């Protein structure tokens, strides 16, 4: 690999890691955070118009919806980053 190509690969990898950090932070907050650690305090609120206590909803419904969204967002952004750094598949 030439130095130039190597530098490009390194920058690509750093971008990738930053995206992963952000998405995994969201992943952590909705599940371990809202669904478990803060669930008790969040349970004193209900989602307006429903019977869902907020902590319980995150634990049994909300976190799963966010998980699905996260993967689609990841796939989309990653494909863009691939093209930006010209490492996408032909």
């Amino acid at each position, binding site marked *: 690999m030439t130095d130039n190509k190597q530098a490009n690969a390194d920058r690509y990898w750093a971008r990738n890691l930053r995206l992963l950090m952000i998405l995994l932070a969201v992943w952590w907050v909705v599940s371990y955070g809202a669904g478990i650690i803060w669930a008790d305090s969040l349970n004193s609120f209900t989602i307006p118009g429903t019977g869902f206590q907020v902590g319980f909803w995150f634990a049994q*419904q909300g976190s799963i919806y966010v998980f699905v969204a996260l*993967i689609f967002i990841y*796939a989309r952004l990653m494909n863009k980053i691939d093209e930006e750094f010209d490492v996408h598949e032909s």
Partner: protein
Amino acid sequence: MDVQAWTFLIVGSTFALYIGIAIWSRASTTGDFYIAGRGVHPVINGMATGADWMSAASFISMAGLISFMGYDGAVYLMGWTGGYVLLALLLAPYLRKFGKFTVPDFVGDRYYSNGARIVAVVCAVFVSFTYVAGQMRGVGVVFSRFLEVEINVGVAIGMAIVFFYAVLGGMKGITYTQAAQYCVLIFAYLVPAIFISILLTDHLIPQIGFGSSLGGAIGSQVANGETITLIEKLNQLNTELGFKEYTSGSKSMLDVLCITGALMAGTAGLPHVIVRFYTVPRVRDARISAGWALFFIAILYTTAPAVAAFARTNLIQSVSEANYAATEGEKSIPQWFKTWEDTGLLAWVDKNEDGKVQYVAGSALAGKPAFGEGRGAHGERIVTNSNPDTANELYVDRDIIVLANPEIANLPAWVIALVAAGGLAAALSTAAGLLLVVSTSVSHDLLKRVFVPSITEKQELLAARVAAGFAVMLAGYFGINPPGFVAQVVAFAFGLAASSFFPAIILGIFVKRANREGVVSGMLAGITFTAAYIIYFKFMGGTPDEYWFGISPEGIGTLGMMLNFGVAFVVSRFTPEPPQEVQELVEHIRVPAGSSGPSAAH
């Protein structure tokens, strides 16, 4: 037509469909057999992954489990879905770029060691067999309950079907049958869920009904004129009967965190799931395919907690203080109560001899019901192991929640038949995926890569088929003679995957410095620690008050995983760095470009 005729018709036609697909998608090369020639569309792969992942336990037992656990059931919901985020972001795209055929392939090549490869093979085979025995049993149970054939005959029929499409079609056959099985199982799950949602909340969509006010035919009776949400009512009913509130948990927070963590990492590390992402054409397909997989899984996983809450409300409402014998003008138990009592999944002991069902906190019986001869004073089945320490008179097996849903909601016979076909689809699809991992481990990882590298393509394909055949028979044997420890070892499967594969693969991709010495010692430390903890508490009579920091064996995989990471990291620092070609391999898998071709060059 009666239920049985419907069941034969629906189950028979789904089986014919699976066989038809198997014949259409025969495998002719090892590439076809192991990874479906890498030609699977990402959405189809998503469906197949969904069916592969959702086992008899997800389909039949999970909603019931949540129904009795309330909030704590969230560990399964989050654990078994959150793992897909890890899989999609940290593993699947890179393993797809790596190419090759199996998880031990990656471990062996990345850590330039046949020792590491063999450790990975042993883990893969152990994890898969643990799982598959339960699936075969599930097939037998569904057959015996809905078609009134012996459990063993049911297992044999299931074996024959799996044998046919796994041996003939390999991964290619399995992929397309799994996609069909996903459609069958999700339809079978949603139809009763939608009906029961309408009956209890007057809402078509269970996920919305779950959060709504009571309404509809059964719901308005439960509400009794009040305007009250289902969840509030359920909390009230639970509290009145001495159970904890439905929306609050009884496990310690640390334990909930650890169990969720072990299930997530375990899910991401299960070889039969990972290998599905080798079957798509490109890296970008692997990313989006994981999204589709979780989307298809989430349809069931967000419906299950709704079904759990509906069923719990309906169960308490219809049986609490109801007369066992039909009594004019008073509340009596519904017909399904007696049907399921006959199957032994439900039992009633009239402890205070008032002829009414008292359903309160505490276990009614000492373990599972032991039935005696004849009938009691009110016509109930005699139970011989009543537990005198509690006032609770009712034993309910958690599997009833899904299996009896159609009867509870008074649904037509074809829906009941559909649930049978759905349960079979869930069990067969998971069994096939697992058996493929076992057969590939033998023919590819052990024969081709370690012991007989000179084997030809044709011979390897034959070896894979023979291994699949043997694996099916062994699985069937375990289905007919289930080892008593099957339920206990499920914790093993996840704990082991979390404490062995997951860290090894993550380090292999993200830490270039991770070397053979580090990762092999990390895997051994993680597995030994996790296995020792589980064996001590599950088989050697350890009691819950001896748990470390209150962490149950189900959650110990999280600590095992951390130990693995820690040991691997430290040992890697003090031993020589990986050879140049391995470092280049890591560079190679980190970028998508150049992924095509059946065996990735490096």
